[in-house]
């Protein structure tokens, strides 16, 4: 087994969401912190896809941003091909590293500059990294990139508003591919798209991975999409990974009660009229997470230990799970 391309160890991001100083002094409000990501560790092998799933506010997008250096980490380390990302990005090798990892964002309407032509949008990373020498060369390269995502090279002269959502997302992909990266971080790339268009974009992403050997971190709340795209899946809850498993294993034998609940909650077109296990409760406020296992208020298996002691992500039967009940064999 080769060394993983991307390795994340004990990654954490704490946001200070305190009220302004005056309010703190006058109203005696305390400082407040959100542990958006709290001790997350995983590794992605070259050419594979790791997917992170979870409900809103579980920290999956924050992980994506930490990985590409859009946020600074509070503690923990991200290693890319043996290099510490935070150190490299602070130093002189930053531009070289940025070329190798790119990001695709969720909203194809907000992530493209409406005043720029597609040519300039896709050529920006090429020019920024000095990968093209002349405008003619840039145009040529943009044409190739647009063809690779199923658009017409002539589209380079158009503006983003002339495209539909799915086509815009392809432009984002073309831009991300411009520097020939090895690693793509995709933050909900198809959540804003209709299903038939989503299928087009997912197919393109899979084709590109096969052809160019790309490594993906794929973030989504849609388990069916994740199942289609990923090799390995990490389930997040309130800033922590609760289960990391191979795709087949996760869907066939989910271990963590939260994973089971998520799988049960999803309506599926092939299971008309099946009995569901009703889901209890809601995601707690991340400002004030419950002590112990943060899932315990909603968990059917919770006991005294779960309320007091935080479970660690342990390797149990080839799957990494953070759950006392699974560890003790109470989960059945």
């Amino acid at each position, binding site marked *: 087994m080769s060394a993983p391309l991307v390795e994340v160890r004990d990654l954490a991001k704490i946001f200070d969401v305190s009220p302004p100083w005056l309010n703190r002094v006058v109203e005696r409000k305390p400082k407040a912190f959100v542990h958006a990501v709290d001790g997350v560790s995983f590794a992605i092998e070259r050419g594979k896809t790791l997917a992170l799933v979870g409900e809103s506010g579980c920290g999956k997008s924050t992980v994506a941003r930490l990985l590409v250096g859009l946020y600074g980490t509070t503690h923990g380390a991200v290693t890319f091909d043996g290099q510490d990302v935070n150190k490299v990005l602070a130093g002189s090798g930053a531009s070289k590293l940025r070329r190798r990892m790119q990001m695709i964002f969720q909203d194809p309407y907000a992530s493209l500059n409406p005043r720029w032509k597609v040519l300039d949008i896709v050529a920006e990373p090429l020019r920024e990294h000095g990968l093209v020498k002349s405008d003619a060369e840039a145009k040529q390269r943009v044409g190739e990139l647009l063809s690779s995502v199923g658009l017409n090279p002539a589209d380079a002269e158009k503006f983003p508003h002339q495209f539909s959502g799915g086509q815009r997302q392809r432009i984002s992909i073309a831009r991300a591919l411009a520097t020939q990266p090895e690693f793509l971080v995709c933050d909900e790339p198809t959540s804003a798209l*209709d299903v038939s268009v989503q*299928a087009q974009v997912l197919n393109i992403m899979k084709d590109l991975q096969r052809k160019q050997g790309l490594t993906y971190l794929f973030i989504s709340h849609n388990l*069916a999409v994740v*199942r289609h795209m990923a090799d390995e899946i990490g389930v997040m809850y309130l800033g922590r990974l609760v289960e990391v498993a191979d795709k087949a294993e996760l869907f066939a034998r989910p271990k963590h009660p939260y994973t089971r609940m*998520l799988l049960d*909650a*999803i*309506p599926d077109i092939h299971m008309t009229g099946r009995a*569901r296990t009703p889901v209890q409760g*809601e995601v707690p406020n991340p400002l004030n997470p419950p002590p112990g296992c943060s899932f315990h208020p909603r968990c059917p298996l919770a006991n005294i230990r779960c309320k007091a002691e935080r479970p660690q992500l342990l390797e149990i039967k080839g799957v990494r799970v953070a759950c006392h009940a699974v560890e003790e064999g109470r989960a059945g």
Partner: protein
Amino acid sequence: MTAPLLEVSHLRVEFPTRRGTLLALDDISFSIAPGEILGVVGESGAGKSLTGAAIIGLLDPPGRIAAGEIRLAGRRIDNLPYEQMRRVRGREIGAVFQDPLTSLNSLYTVGRQLTETITTHLDLTASQARTRAIELLASTGIPAPEARVDHFPHQFSGGMRQRVVIALALAANPKLIVADEPTTALDVSIQAQIIALLKKVCKEQGAAVMLVTHDMGVIAETCDRVAVMYAGRIAEIGPVADVIHRPAHPYTVGLMGSIPAMDEDRERLLQIDGSMPRLTAIPPGCAFNPRCPRVFDRCRSERPELADVGATNAACWRPVTVEAPR
């Protein structure tokens, strides 16, 4: 068969603009039986929300009903004057919208909003209305309704707010609920709760539901029948299991194939190339013909009507009658 509760026939909605009239809904016909849940599914811009808006009489101007009829329990409601329609809305048709924050007034307590709706439509005193408001909150699964009734919308979470909106829609015991993407803004675990709730309360009250959504999974789990819309027309309508497992319209086939399944592995998803036409450029004949794999001459010139093609009704000259490849 009982008489339908809602009957929409040949509904046509137009938007006059400076550059000509846009035909947003073109010859839509369907009906909903009492107590039935009809799903309306389609991609953005297919006209599904507009159909819901036309039924509750809340089309945004300049949109207008240009032709066709909407009948509720035999009575025509599409041409009622505003005041009369206001009585129908809430009393006979309840509405649930996508965003639970914008459909509640953030300056009033939920109790006040509920009692206002109740006293407008039912002949109850203020204290009776308050009791009913608390009952409604309890029936939609809100814990401690006696205390919650005096809270403001911002004090509720997204899922709880949508419960309040459902309570509002049910306040006057309507016969029909129009729910427009009621779970789209919610997380999956909350979505499951809201759908179960909608199903339960409608069954208890015997209300029929028109559920507009783009999520086929939600449709599959909730509805009795489903209408698939494309470019302002109904492409296919039929019992939910048949439309999902034995679709006859090539668009429905493509739509079903493009949804990643939870129980099987496919290397590639079936994809429909291209995208839905803009309203300004709907092709002649069948609106789906430029993207259709089964297209032939007739599709380009002559518009197909909904016709019985076996298990479902489809508007297609060359429906897929054999078992669809999965």
